[in-house]
């Protein structure tokens, strides 16, 4: 039961913390936002991340990766979550590389994974079509035509979809929205004819786009995995996404809490620091408890991924449910305890709250995860 980081992982985490604090902190996100930067992240910073081995962190060494594993990736994402770091790491590595690792062909592996590991190729997953996460909800159609496929339909909330080089598109080749069977996954160049990307500024300044596929033609080799069997890739992929998002959320809540504690120790009212009021102390103790519980679920889920354990789906639901719960409480309490200043854009605590709400929704909200957990726990 690897509920603690080993030495290598701890080192990676320390490096990540230092890197994000100095090279990709909240201030960078603010600047990108205020400048309405078209990319939404710094490609320099992204290159440095790749050089640190993060882009190839779950990619086998044979394909140019560092193979540090999921615990290490989780540690990096936690630090990115702590600093609200703007980067395409999640989309490209967790989702993009993740999908290829799960369902890609040998030639896709050898073509694409080295480029990902080198930070030369970014990807995004185009899945959602409705306001609530729905793994098999795709209605976007793919029809066989000649020696390829034609994709038609719309995708929403594609994280990093405005800037990714290639899009992994869940499309329906059979059946109807909601069916597990009949989904296929295609790799589509973002600049392919018929692809229209509309960047969507998110409330938390996370990068996302809505994408229209107007009769987009792709070759047969664009398929990732078998025709109609995308669910076999999507299910484990979404479990990974949930676990990694929970790791990111852990960093976000940990930092929101740390800043709140600092404020409680510093802000005075009635002549004493407000952290001396028992009412606030007890609530701070509850926040601490929530974070520690969430941390345990995230660590166990990440180590389950590394060990390829068969309880990954259960732990994915657990970690995302618990992290969602904890982050919800912590982000709201952090704002309340900051009082009026917390309401201003000038203070960072509101950015954490907004990021929290988007993180909670991504890959299924708390109710979704709870229900999924309950179903899986009963087998």
């Amino acid at each position, binding site marked *: 039961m690897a509920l603690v980081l080993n030495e290598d992982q701890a080192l990676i985490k320390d490096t990540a913390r230092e890197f994000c604090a100095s090279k990709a902190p909240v201030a960078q996100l603010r600047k990108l936002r205020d400048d309405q930067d078209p990319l939404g992240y710094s490609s320099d910073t992204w290159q440095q991340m790749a050089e640190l081995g993060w882009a190839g962190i779950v990619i086998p060494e044979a394909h140019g990766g560092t193979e540090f594993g999921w615990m290490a990736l989780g540690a990096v994402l936690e630090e990115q979550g702590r600093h609200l770091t703007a980067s395409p790491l999640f989309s490209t590595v967790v989702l993009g590389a993740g999908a290829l690792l799960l369902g890609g062909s040998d030639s896709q592996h050898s073509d694409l994974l080295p480029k990902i590991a080198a930070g030369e190729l970014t990807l995004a997953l185009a899945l*959602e079509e*409705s*306001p*609530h*996460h*729905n793994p098999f909800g795709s209605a976007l159609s793919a029809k066989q035509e000649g020696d390829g496929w034609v994709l038609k339909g719309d995708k*929403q*909330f594609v994280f990093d979809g405005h800037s990714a080089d290639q899009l992994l598109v869940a499309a329906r080749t059979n059946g109807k929205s909601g069916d597990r069977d009949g989904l296929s996954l295609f790799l589509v160049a973002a600049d392919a004819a018929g692809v229209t990307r509309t960047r*969507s*500024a*998110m*409330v*938390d*300044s996370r990068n*996302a786009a*809505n994408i229209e596929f107007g009769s987009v033609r792709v070759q047969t080799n664009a398929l990732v995995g078998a025709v109609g069997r995308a669910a076999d890739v999507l299910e484990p992929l979404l479990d990974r996404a949930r676990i990694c998002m929970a790791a990111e959320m852990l960093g976000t809540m940990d930092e929101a809490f740390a800043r709140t504690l600092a404020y409680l120790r510093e802000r005075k*009212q*009635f*002549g004493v620091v407000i952290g001396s*009021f028992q*009412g*606030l102390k007890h609530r701070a103790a509850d926040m601490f408890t929530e974070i520690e519980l969430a941390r345990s679920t995230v660590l166990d889920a990440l180590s389950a991924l590394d060990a390829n354990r068969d309880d990954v789906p259960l732990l994915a639901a657990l970690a995302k449910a618990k992290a969602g719960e904890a982050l919800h409480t912590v982000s*709201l309490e952090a*704002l*309340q305890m900051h*009082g*009026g200043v*917390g*309401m*201003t*854009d*000038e203070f960072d605590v*509101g*950015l954490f*709250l*907004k990021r929290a*709400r*988007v993180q909670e*929704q991504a890959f299924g*909200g708390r*109710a*979704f995860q709870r*229900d999924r957990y309950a179903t899986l726990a009963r087998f």
Partner: protein
Amino acid sequence: MKLAFTSEEEAFRDEVRAFFDASLTDELREAGRLMTSVYSDKEVALAWQKILLDKGWLVPSWPREYGGTGWTLTQRYIFACERARARPPALSPMGLSMLGPALLGRGTQAQKDHYLPRILSGEDFWCQGYSEPQAGSDLAGLQCQAIRDGDHYVLHGTKIWTTHAQFANRMFCLVRTGRFERPQQGVSFLLVDMEDPGVRCDPIRFVSGCATQCTVYFDNVRVPVSEIVGEENEGWSVTKYLLEFERGGGAAAPGLLEAIGHARMLLELLPEADRSGPARRLDDLQVQVHSLELTELRTLSETERTGSPGPASSLLKIQGSELSQAISEVAVELIGLHGMPFQPEAYALGNNVSAVGPEDGVTTVPFYLNNRAASIYAGSNEIQRNIISKAVLGL
């Protein structure tokens, strides 16, 4: 909520409803629908104020000689319910609901005669200056100085969280005129001309992206001594009177019930199988809101009897704000990813932008964010709980 009304009351309700139906223009309706906080923009607020003034229904609770309607409690309650149903823009409360009652209760005749008509007409647009950067709920920390110089006070200092200061021509505020053992003492209640060259306003950008509040700087602002309300150094008693009205005077429940109804419409965004959980939470919240409503009515009865809602106002403030936040939580959960885009252009007045997600949901997230302040402003809910435990429970 169903209450048993007399046939006169039923007729009154019909009259109010007809008035709202007839007098709310499309623009005003849109402005009401697109509110992202409890405040509307100055122009629409004043436009609606003018209509109510002409009808004679602007300040129902004021004495008749100053524009009040003389309505019974039930009529005022019916009016509040119909208003919640019609969703007009919000009136600016600073003059109508705060300073007005304070002047009626504690102002001189000259102050009443001068200011009350100008509040009603909108000629004076007021803002409220209580908070300071180092003094939120703690009056002892109040540092804004008013030094007596002949028949003027000279003001120096900073006010913060001043709603609509950038649009206001006048501010009522608390300033320090002395130091005494009790921190409440030594504070005076002054009326300040915002057009004085020594006044500067910096809008504060909020988490939601909106900027309804300002930091206000006083640098050598001269205020005639006639512009004091109540006695020098005794401004706290005016404020206390006014704060209790602010907290307890309103009828939050009808609006909260509307908010629940609005959230219920968002249930449709969920697959049918997933609706029962949030639907039940809304049912629970409706039980709470109905309980609050009856408590508001009970408090109104008490207020009529005793002249002040007293410490019960803290209870209403806590409940009103926390229920509003809880309803808003459910709405955000229901709107899901559709609430996540930042699209201020879609809730700007007069826009014809097509929003991501349901049209009725464009304000869900900005309202949610702005509404986090409800448990912070006007005395944080922590302060309200302190007040109850001390003033009511004797702890």
